[in-house]
């Protein structure tokens, strides 16, 4: 049965929708949104000599 103590660690992750929810929100938000937002905030003004 799957509730035996020798459940593979990866299976424990697969069976845990709450952990997947947290990771599934954090990882894209950091990698795409937050990083992209930082890139935009750091843009310098044009010199236009």
């Amino acid at each position, binding site marked *: *049965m*799957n509730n035996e103590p020798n459940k593979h660690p*990866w*299976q424990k*992750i*697969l*069976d845990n*929708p709450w952990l*997947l*929810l947290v*990771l*599934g*929100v954090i*990882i*894209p*938000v950091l*990698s*795409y*949104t937050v*990083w*992209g*937002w930082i*890139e*935009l905030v750091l*843009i310098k003004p044009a010199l236009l000599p």
Partner: protein
Amino acid sequence: MSHSSSHNLAAPGTPGRVCGTTGLGICLDAQKFIKLNAVVGIVFLLLGGIAALLLALTRWQTVHLLPADWFYRILTFHGINMLILWILFFEVAILYFACTTPLNARLFSKKVAWVSFALMLTGGVMVDYIIIAGKADVMMTSYLPLLAHPLFYLGIILVAVGTLVGVFNYFATLYVAKRDQSYTGSVPIVTFGATAAAIIAVVTLLHGAVVMIPTFTYSMGWTPQPDPAWYRLIWWGLGHQSQQVNVCAMVSVWYLLSHIVVGARPINEAVCRTAFVLYILFINLASAHHLLVDPGVGATWKIWNTSYAMYLAVLASMIHGFTVPAGIEIGMRERGYTNGIFGWVVALPWRNPAFSATVLSLLIFGFLGGITGVTLGTQQINIIAHNTLRIPGHFHVTVVGGTTLAFMGLAYYVIPLIFQRDFICRGVARVQPWLFGFGITMLAFGMSFAGSMGVSRRSWDIEAQGVYGPAAHLWLGVLGIGGVLAFFGLLIFALLCVGTLFFGAKIKDRAMTDWGTPPALAGSKAGSLAHDHYATKGTMVLTLVFLACFAVYYFANWKALADVWPVR
């Protein structure tokens, strides 16, 4: 008011019934909301489809049906109704199924489901009304500084919030089912895929709220204009990530339908689920491919994100591209269809519309959608593709030829099993997926080739530029004819569904009328190939052919890129 202490469908007093075809339990609350959301979804599909016909007959410049202002208006309408309304309503219906029947569980809350439905429907009607009233000619993307009437943004916010409420109901049902031990063991793959879709939906809808609320308050004159570059970044967190919800839902439907029709099962549950986890973690990064030729976001951000973190999410799609056909092949071989490498393919129930829709969806999404998507989404190749018709050429084979066609296939079982009505005009139904799939493929070819010649998307008239020749017009004609065929495929589907709901033979105390499943031959043994890891010869050949096509298309595009001016 209190919930019953057990959300187990088998608990006394729980409103449920046993399906006469599958023997599975159905929560009557979930059933009600599956019906509501599916029907409303199909209504929006039909509206979006009528818009599609008008657009196809306009871009086909020989016909040039709509005047310019109505073209841009209907284009906005089409995008919203197809990419947001049709698909989110149908997906909410799928979620209600996936958290109840497979887990023998009861829907968490009827009240929450009503709130979700009311918000989504109000928002949908609001946004459709304001577009047709001519106050929101901004395209689905509504890029600032283009400004629409506040009701446009408010409508989208209501749809997003409503969907989030539905997703909450899904997770709550999962939680209570586990807590009350409505089921034991791990959830089945269909539920796992639906959970992946729901997780991605959370990310999507959060981005929707973050971008739409300040834009709404700006449109009301209460706050300053959000920055256009910031708007694009966050909007595509809503816009593309909603499509990733579609991918997960579509793949779940592939597993579901292939199981129902030919008894397919995942050949390795761990591999399939890991593929869904790769989607959960990384597929949303690819929203970056809308910003590849944008100012402001740098090359490193572009390259890392558009590669789905080194193509891990593409790996996931390639995994499903093997495991879904492999499951079908195993199911067929175990039934005795063991002739040669492809004997099982010939014996498949091609006349079963749910099955043909599934296979067509898989082939169109994989060969056409996936290959073009990954290629167009490389930072540098995007230079020769951004905002050309190649882009709609890509997403019509993924969202329409892939997801929508799979959902149509699902309807051929949902209506008999959930609405308990046998389909009318069954002969016509058998042809419908082929007509729709062919039409969409033709439309997409027209778009892709015209786009390769530099024809823009979202443009009413290419003659105004004076730079496009007869070849471009030829491909726009192909687009037009494909669009007409696809429209008829869609219209037939909508009429069949509506007609069946009113006139279909009621199913009571019997199984639904079978669409066609391959009979088990003499010598068949269920489960006999469970330990034969080299049984799926046909699938292996298919996937290697796919890989070869991928490599050819991919490198051909790099070559085409190398021919344009150096730029940095």
